[in-house]
């Protein structure tokens, strides 16, 4: 099967060839010579006249020009031979969050394999959690959840956004098309809980970049994990760990009712009495957040730095102005494992969240003077909410509406494989050869034209007839 990387270039070349052919039929040229004794009675006009013929003029020139145009067009348009036997491509992207159990994931992969198990289908399975796992061929067939779990990734509390999922799919499709040259179109299947959280501002633009329809498969939530992490109203519960916290910190958390001093029955604030039953269930399965906020010194693993005064802290987009003294810096090794939740005003990380097996631990490298009331006012509200908030940030776990999903699916057919080929990748080793041949043909055309112009041009004055007359 023949594929064309840039059809418009090939079309332009074919159009140019057609125009050349037409011009050879309609060319304005010197007509035949007639020895006319009464020529003096003809009006003295230019000697060129339109001569239309049923046959093309200058057949060799026509062939050379058309061949050069077509060769150059083929070379520049990236015509490729993809062999016989067209195959269909399919990219299955599975969003995996903390609410996606291993069994659900295994079921999804098995279904994707079963759907794509056809001789003419080439499939890529991609599992996206906090990292991207590409399952190739045999690996996907012998899928084991612990294979993915053993890789350097962690389960996010919410699946990745649809934008990033589509981008992953686009890249995977490009690799699929590059590896399998006989693929003519690519299907995209996205499986996951498809939560409202997955919809971000860039989704419309990213969706438009996928040149085909998308099939969405909404997966079931894992009740155990979901209930404990997501579904219930979140109850802030903080346990101070590590070195002794500052009295200012302790009092600020206590004042808000978030401090769980006994680690078992945290002080919780409910939003409404009607939710008391839910809150009880949450308290049973929802471990408190560990907060390491030493009154002096540095959190465990942090490095001590020269004390410098920094005038402000930034958290959740709000600024807390205070003459803080910075005595600790977070090393890169820890920073890469966690998620920054507060920053110094110069951009350095001031607090970080590191996931644990059940929840997360937050390390804060901000020294608050024991007698300070900086954490008591409204200005510190954003910082404390960030520190006591749910692990992984606050997420919206409402499913995306069915109508919106239909809009995202789009109409039409699968994405053509040509859409995933870059111009560079479309070029073949034959392009240079074809261009060289086109150049040679143009040189030959010039030589033929030059030879004929010697005969037809000025030499027309002295052709055989005129020589006979002379």
């Amino acid at each position: 099967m023949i594929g064309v990387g840039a059809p418009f270039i090939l079309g332009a070349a074919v159009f140019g060839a057609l125009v050349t052919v037409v011009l050879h039929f309609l060319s304005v040229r010197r007509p035949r010579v007639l020895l006319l004794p009464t020529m003096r009675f003809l009006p003295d006009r230019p000697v060129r006249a339109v001569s239309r013929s049923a046959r093309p003029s200058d057949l060799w020139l026509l062939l050379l020009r058309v061949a050069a145009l077509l060769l150059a067009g083929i070379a520049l348009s990236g015509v490729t031979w993809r062999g016989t036997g067209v195959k269909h491509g399919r990219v299955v992207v599975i969003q995996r969050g903390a609410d996606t159990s291993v069994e659900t994931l295994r079921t999804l992969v098995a279904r994707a394999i079963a759907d794509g198990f056809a001789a003419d289908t080439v499939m890529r399975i991609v599992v996206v959690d906090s990292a991207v796992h590409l399952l190739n061929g045999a690996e996907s067939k012998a899928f084991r959840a612990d294979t993915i779990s053993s890789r350097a990734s962690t389960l996010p509390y919410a699946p990745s956004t649809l934008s990033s999922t589509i981008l992953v799919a686009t890249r995977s499709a490009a690799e699929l098309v590059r590896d399998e040259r006989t693929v003519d179109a690519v299907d995209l299947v996205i499986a996951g809980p498809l939560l409202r959280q997955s919809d971000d501002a860039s989704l419309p633009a990213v969706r438009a970049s996928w040149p085909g329809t998308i099939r969405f498969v909404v997966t079931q939530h894992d009740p155990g994990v979901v209930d404990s992490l997501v579904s219930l109203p979140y109850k802030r519960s903080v346990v101070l760990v590590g070195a002794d916290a500052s009295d200012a910190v302790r009092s600020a958390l206590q004042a808000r009712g978030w401090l769980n001093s006994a680690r078992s029955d945290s002080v919780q604030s409910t939003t409404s009495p009607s939710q008391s039953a839910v809150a009880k269930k949450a308290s049973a399965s929802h471990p408190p957040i560990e907060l390491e906020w030493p009154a002096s010194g540095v959190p465990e693993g942090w490095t001590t730095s020269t004390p410098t005064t920094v005038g402000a802290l930034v958290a959740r987009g709000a600024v807390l102005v205070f003459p803080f003294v910075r005595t600790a810096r977070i090393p890169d090794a820890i920073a890469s494992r966690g998620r920054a939740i507060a920053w110094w005003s110069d951009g350095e990380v001031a607090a970080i969240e590191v996931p644990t097996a059940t929840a997360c631990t937050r390390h804060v490298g901000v020294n608050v003077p024991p007698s300070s009331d900086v954490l008591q006012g409204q200005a510190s509200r954003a910082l404390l909410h960030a520190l006591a908030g749910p692990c992984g940030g606050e997420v919206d776990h409402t499913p995306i509406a069915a109508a919106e999903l239909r809009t995202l699916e789009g109409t039409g057919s699968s994405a053509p494989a040509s859409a995933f080929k870059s111009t560079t990748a479309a070029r073949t080793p034959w392009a240079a050869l074809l261009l060289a041949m086109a150049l040679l043909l143009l040189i030959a055309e010039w030589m033929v034209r030059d030879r004929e112009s010697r005969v037809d041009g000025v030499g027309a004055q002295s052709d055989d007839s005129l020589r006979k007359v002379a």
Partner: protein
Amino acid sequence: MGAMLDALRGVRWPARRPVAAGLPGAHRSRKRGTSGEFSEYRLYRQGDDPRRLDWKLLARSNRAFVRLTDDRALVPTWIVADASASLDFPTEETNARPTKWDLLRAIAIGLAAVAHSGADPVGLMVASGGGARLTPRTRRGTVREISRALYETRCVGASAISPLLAPISPNCRIVILSDLLGDFEDTLRTVSQLIAAGAQVDCVHVVAVEELDLPEGAWLAVDPEAAEVAPRALHRGARAEYRRAFDLFRAEAARRWRAAGAGYLEARTDASPARIVRHIASGAAGDLAADHSGVTEQNP
């Protein structure tokens, strides 16, 4: 050619006016001689030959009259053929026949045969490089010599007719066969002088039908006699303009030759040569007559 000569058998070609004195022939001479064909009486003048006095009339009327009789003389005939390259038309490109030269040659041979049958000496001059020149003779085989000379002639280059006419004696008959595309003015000037001196001149203007109706299609017209002249385009738009100019030229040529006192006849290549020769031989009719068969004749 034999068919044409058969068709011209018995045709006579009398001189249009009395010819100068010469050897006895078939044409009325300006000289009043002593032949047996009585013409008129004239009073005797001093110096007249007394032997020509009509003695019986003198006896009856007591007046002296001289008996005058008409004299008959021969008239030498020159056939001047234009053999320039322009006569070789139509060329092979248009696949048309006959050419102007074919018609001219047939007319020349026919006129020579007619003149020779009238016992007039007939000669030939071909206006081309190295053209033949045969002095007027009456001997047997003259027509054949003229015919051979014409068949051996090739139409090449440009030729001038007036230099050939200059040495010709005015006491003869001259037939110019040409397409008049050469030295038109010089020829007409020389002819005028000859006519003033008493010569009888006829002009046969040979015109090809293809010159009147140019071949279809686009052509690059080249003058066969002047290769240095820039070619001109022959296309649909130029045809009407060409025909208008060519008709004007032909009409002007006829008018000027007539005004000079010469006979003028336009012969087209689709006309019968024998018919054209008959027209020339009977030129004494005098009036302009348009013939749809391709002959346009005018005699003064």
